[in-house]
């Protein structure tokens, strides 16, 4: 025992001496500033994305994490109240978080607002009070939108009467509310207005005046067979065409390049043979597009009444202009929600059922990397380089 202790003592002395010899002239570490808070570099590179943690287990305390899908770095977060939404504007270099809070936690006065944060500091720069009617609905991209001219933020209301709150982004101020009886959600068009889907199977197009009030309202003929095979409200925009999908897997493109939208020809995602196996679109938000014309759709085999929100084990890639599938790949983990970057070689971002964010090569489906620990129940991902769109 004593012999052992002696040996250890000698070894320690030798180690210390060796340490001194190796680092003879290193300066001592300087004192560091307090407080010390990081900033983000602006403008953001095209590899940032926002992951929405719905926090189903504690709805009043949700959040948005900002990540770099290339380096896998977690860059910061925005905290939010319940049933939150997020939009961002490259023009204004800001995030707009819609949220509902109560003044005493789960009690007190209800307050609905849009909290505005700057890109560089993620600091709160404005709070915009809203009528306390904003729709409290599980994560859905179409609950809010920024108009194509980057002028207005639109917030869908349901109490359960439906309307839209309009926020002027030049002033960060609420400027009015548009009543939208029977019609829901907001899908921006290319001329500063927006579309809505209506409960009677039509769609409505609303044009805005300079002050944000309604200039005109146009309603389509009935085209959506809601009872038999409804159009899902989870849609993707490619250039000036919104792509909607029915539960059974039909694609209904809607051209929004002008104030009066045009319903384009319907096409099927799956072949007749595949439809016999009930391949259907799936996922919480299981479709994504980019402006080069690529369309990714999460699919599940053997769909059934109620499978429209199931996770998607496969992604099918389409050339939306030719309406043809060009690739099909299995995911490393089934998808809740997907989104695509707008690079020439796009990345497909997938919030999977384990709550991680998977990054794939958008064309080959090769799994590139995974980012873990993004909150309690991550539901959605928003690539930041996709401009004003949610």
């Amino acid at each position, binding site marked *: 025992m004593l012999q052992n202790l002696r040996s250890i003592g000698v070894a320690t002395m030798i180690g210390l001496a060796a340490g001194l010899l190796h680092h003879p002239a290193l300066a001592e570490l300087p004192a560091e500033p307090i407080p010390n808070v990081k900033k983000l570099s602006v403008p953001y590179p095209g590899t940032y994305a926002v992951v929405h943690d719905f926090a189903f287990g504690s709805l009043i305390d949700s959040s948005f994490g900002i990540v770099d899908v290339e380096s896998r770095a977690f860059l910061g977060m925005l905290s939010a109240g319940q049933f939150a939404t997020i939009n961002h504007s490259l023009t204004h270099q800001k995030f707009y978080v819609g949220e509902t809070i109560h003044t005493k936690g789960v009690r007190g006065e209800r307050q609905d607002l849009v909290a505005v944060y700057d890109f560089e500091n993620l600091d709160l720069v404005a709070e915009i009070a809203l009528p306390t009617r904003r729709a409290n609905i599980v994560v859905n991209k179409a609950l809010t939108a920024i108009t194509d001219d980057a002028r207005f933020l639109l917030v869908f209301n349901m109490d359960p009467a439906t309307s839209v709150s309009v926020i002027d982004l030049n002033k960060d101020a609420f400027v009015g509310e548009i009543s939208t009886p029977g019609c829901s959600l907001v899908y921006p068009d290319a001329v500063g207005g927006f579309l809505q889907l209506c409960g009677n199977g039509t769609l409505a197009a609303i044009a805005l005046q300079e002050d944000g009030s309604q200039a005109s309202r146009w309603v389509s003929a009935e085209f959506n067979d809601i009872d038999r095979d409804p159009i899902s409200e989870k849609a993707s925009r490619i250039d000036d065409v919104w792509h909607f999908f029915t539960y059974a897997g039909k694609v209904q493109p809607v051209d929004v390049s002008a104030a009066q939208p045009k319903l384009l020809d319907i096409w099927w995602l799956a072949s007749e043979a595949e439809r016999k196996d009930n391949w259907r679109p799936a996922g919480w938000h299981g479709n994504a597009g980019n402006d080069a014309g690529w369309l990714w759709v999460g699919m599940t*085999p053997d769909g059934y009444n109620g499978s429209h*929100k199931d996770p998607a084990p496969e992604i099918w890639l389409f050339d939306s202009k030719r309406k043809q599938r060009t690739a099909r790949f299995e995911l490393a983990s089934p998808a809740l929600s997907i989104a695509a970057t707008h690079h020439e070689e796009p990345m497909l971002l997938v919030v999977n059922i384990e709550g991680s964010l998977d990054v794939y090569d958008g064309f080959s489906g090769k799994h590139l990397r995974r980012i873990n620990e993004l909150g309690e129940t991550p539901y959605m991902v928003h690539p930041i380089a996709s401009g004003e769109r949610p």
Partner: protein
Amino acid sequence: MSRLHDITERTTRSIARRSSRRGFLGRLGSLLGGTALSIPLLPVARASGVGGDSAVPEQTTGVEADPGNPASCDYWRYCGIDGFLCSCCGGSHNACPPGTEMSPLTWIGTCHNPGDGKNYIISYNDCCGKSSCGRCMCNRNEDDRPVYRPNLNNDIDWCMGTTTNVYNCSTAVILGLANT
């Protein structure tokens, strides 16, 4: 593992039908690395296994014509539900937990009762005023329609017309027989 079975049962039943369930779950188990999942697997969960010491205790309505376990997502009334089962949160399949407030507005579904072979209109009243219960998450979307058909949509927080719109859990109350 029983939780994993429950979760995967619904979301993957199609593939399971084409092969043996055991074989399929084995494959999915490998896919997920055999680990316990860290989130309730929303919105895909058919969660909270029944059986075993750690599971939610089994419940019964005590009525022969109303069979099944109201603490299980498989209970017949939950065919269109999305949320935490109040049966696991201090309430029951048709009552809110103490100290919460039942929303007067709801979404509705039509569910088949295997006990008497009849279809019933079910009202999924939310319970409000306390934060998320967090137990027995259950999401089944039979006949669920998109948000623009609000009365048939289960993504909406139906805590409307209550003191606060903070969501706690969901019930499944019989309104009456369905006509069809």
